[in-house]
């Protein structure tokens, strides 16, 4: 068991390191750099020599291996460097921009899970075939709706038409309702699909028939016997979908004008602000790895077959 945990943590750290290294190489391989973009701007009126001096001061042309070593050590110490464009430490930018994104992503994920479970169980309990089919086609509908369009439609309907949620100077929580809904819908779709399929599959297992033969009610069957077994494979997918969540957050933040990691990333890409991009990549990777690590560690808690393999003799 401890070997399993240590192994998984080791793998997680390896993934993080690989994400850092690959993003470092790719960012360095881009033509031009942030110094050129910022200081060649005619507004500054600097000469080519002066720019070269600044470049030397920032050591942008120094040996890549040395730069890599520096950056890695700094990252390990929690120092993400300076944003050239904004002229403030990246960590300061993250301090303002990370919490809204975390809140959005966390709530979006929670909402997606609830929505998926709701759809799956509703479809499994639906008394009529037509209702079942209707509910089961919801996920396909959800998945084919573009996020930006959904966001705009939600604003149109709930804010402008029904005036339920205000978009101008909303409260801290009110401002999250529509973005969270926008984010949750496309994530909930695959989760619900997998859950529906698992529930249908588990229902045909002999142990469900045995439970029924004990006189168990449908509700008891569903919650006690089907649900827990059906949720197990869904966990893995949930972990993987978290990556999609981060990508989805960028679009959502842009549409709803939230000042989060998405906005920060968008600006940093435009300005080739490498320190910011590097930090964003590493933080996204860290979030992704943490969630999947949590999933891996949760598995043995939910599935006794993974706890230990000390089988009894015949």
């Amino acid at each position: 068991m401890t070997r399993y945990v240590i192994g998984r943590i080791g793998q997680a750290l390896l993934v993080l390191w690989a994400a850092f290294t690959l993003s470092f190489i790719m960012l360095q391989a881009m033509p031009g750099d942030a110094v050129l973009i910022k200081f060649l701007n005619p507004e500054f009126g600097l000469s080519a020599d002066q720019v070269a001096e600044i470049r030397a001061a920032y050591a942008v042309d120094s040996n890549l291996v040395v730069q890599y070593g520096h950056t890695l050590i700094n990252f390990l110490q929690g120092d993400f460097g300076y944003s050239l464009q904004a002229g403030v430490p990246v960590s300061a930018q993250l301090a303002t921009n990370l919490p809204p994104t975390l809140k959005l992503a966390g709530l979006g994920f929670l909402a997606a899970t609830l929505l998926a479970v709701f759809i799956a169980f509703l479809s499994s309990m639906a008394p009529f075939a037509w209702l079942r089919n209707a509910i089961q086609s919801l996920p396909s509908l959800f998945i084919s709706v573009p996020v930006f369009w959904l966001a705009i439609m939600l604003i149109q309907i709930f804010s402008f038409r029904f005036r339920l949620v205000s978009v101008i100077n909303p409260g801290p929580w009110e401002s999250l309702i529509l973005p969270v809904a926008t984010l949750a819908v496309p994530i909930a779709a695959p989760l619900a699909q997998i859950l529906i399929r698992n529930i249908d599959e588990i229902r045909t297992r002999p142990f469900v028939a045995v439970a029924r033969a004990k006189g168990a009610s449908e509700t008891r069957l569903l919650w006690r016997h089907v649900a827990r077994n059906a949720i197990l494979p869904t966990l893995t997918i949930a972990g993987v979908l978290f990556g999609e969540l981060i990508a989805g957050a960028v679009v959502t933040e842009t549409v709803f004008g939230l000042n989060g990691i998405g906005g920060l990333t968008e600006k940093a890409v435009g300005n080739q602000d490498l320190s910011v991009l590097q930090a964003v990549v590493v933080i996204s990777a860290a979030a992704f790895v943490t969630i999947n690590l949590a999933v891996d560690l949760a598995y043995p808690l939910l599935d006794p077959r993974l706890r230990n393999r000390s089988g009894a003799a015949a």
Partner: protein
Amino acid sequence: MSISANPVLDVRNLDISYSQGDERSTVVHGVSFTVAPGEVVALVGESGSGKTSTAQAVIGLLANNGRVENGSILLNGEDISHWSARRLRSIRGAVVSLVPQDPGSSLNPVLTIGAQVREILEIHGRLDRREADRRVIELLANVGLSEPELRIRQYPHELSGGMKQRVLIAIAIALRPALIIADEPTSALDVTVQRRILDLIDDLRREHGTSVLLVTHDLGVAADRSERIIVLQGGRIQEQGKTADVLASPQSAYTRKLLSDAPSLAAAKPRPPVEPGRPAALTITNLVQNFALPTGKNFRAVDGISFNVARGTTHAVVGESGSGKTTTIRSIAGFQKPTSGEIRIGDLDVASLRAEGLRQFRRKVQLVYQNPWASLDPRQTVQAIVEEPLLNFDPLPRTERETRVRAIIERVGLPLTVLSRLPHALSGGQRQRVAIARALVLEPEVVVLDEAVSALDVTVQAQILDLLAELQRDLGLTYVFVSHDLAVVRQIADTVSVLHNGRQVDYGTVEDVFSSASTAYTRELIEAIPGQKFPRAETSRRPIKTGPLS
């Protein structure tokens, strides 16, 4: 409860139908029978006979698309066939309970044994928690599980198949139901475990006076364990009566055929002894196979097995699960390198072969697997399936390949029209014939039959066994026949190895091993063959002929 001769179960004119798409098809036609208090009634039939549907209807567990069309099911005198779901729940488990077919998948993998036995008490009773726990332990002890206090905290995967079936029996008897439906309760278990489980059901029945409706495809089990037999075919009752009467003088032609095809009941016609001096087709000397465990230790799956198989004869490898028989044949087929020991096919040492040599060697040894539903690619036509092995070796012109495929398909008794079909359009017996054709198309020297008839109904099994015997006689094939079914082995094999925990505990001609087994284990295996309570039926096996299409 008053003592009366009223039957516990009285099924009258039962019709059951299933819907598929827009069509409804009736699978059980006018079935009527009764089960008296304390009586064991066997419902016998092959797949598709309607025995399982009938049993499911009695406990109200028909699949969603199934429906009782006509007739009545009287349980203790009350017709339950049109009860509401809620009302049915009140009797399930309490008045009629179920012992399912496959213990391996019949317990919820994420709940403890204790929780699953306690559940039936929770659903029906008002026992408080402590009292329920005490009762659970009592029940587990009652069904012969050792250390019940430990078992209640264990999960299903920590128990063996036999132990799981005991847990399921504990659940079934927990509320002392009037009727237990045992749906093929032992067909997924090893033969010695089967015997112990059937003994247990017998003891509990005697103790509590419970009636048992025993659903089985195995006439031997029905013969040993039931007082009355009902023979079903195609959803209709062919014959019913006292077990002894039905076995001694079967009235319907179908029952006679079932009896003659059942290996455990039919008198074994000894195979003529093999004349000495035949060259060996396969020689295994001191085979040892280790597997590395994740803990770093080695697990010895096969420990010093030796046998040789003369050309044109059949050697049976017999053993229960975990005995090492699958490991042995995987080594023979060259799928893994033996840890030590030697395997020779003719004069070729299998262990010495590398990549290309090993690939060429595969044409000499071919396998036929247990499950004809899983061993054929569902998207390939029969033509493509049988032709594939030819494509893997020396290139043959297309017409030549077609000729050989056609020849072998006819040889295994299939019509040429099957060539363009997909496996799902074939019956189980036909599929197994295709699998045999695929193995034979390369004209191998040795054919390894891995439980090749175990998944088939008895009448189909008999046809496939006849086919195998005929092919061996005509083509001089050498078989390694892996089986857990000693009754079948007695019929088809010349020599036999009995494996137990990776060791070879008996080896010799079938006649010697069956008449004077040298170890207690082999004797236990032989005694556990069901169907011994009754003298051998007089109907001896038909002479070998090309069987009708199955």
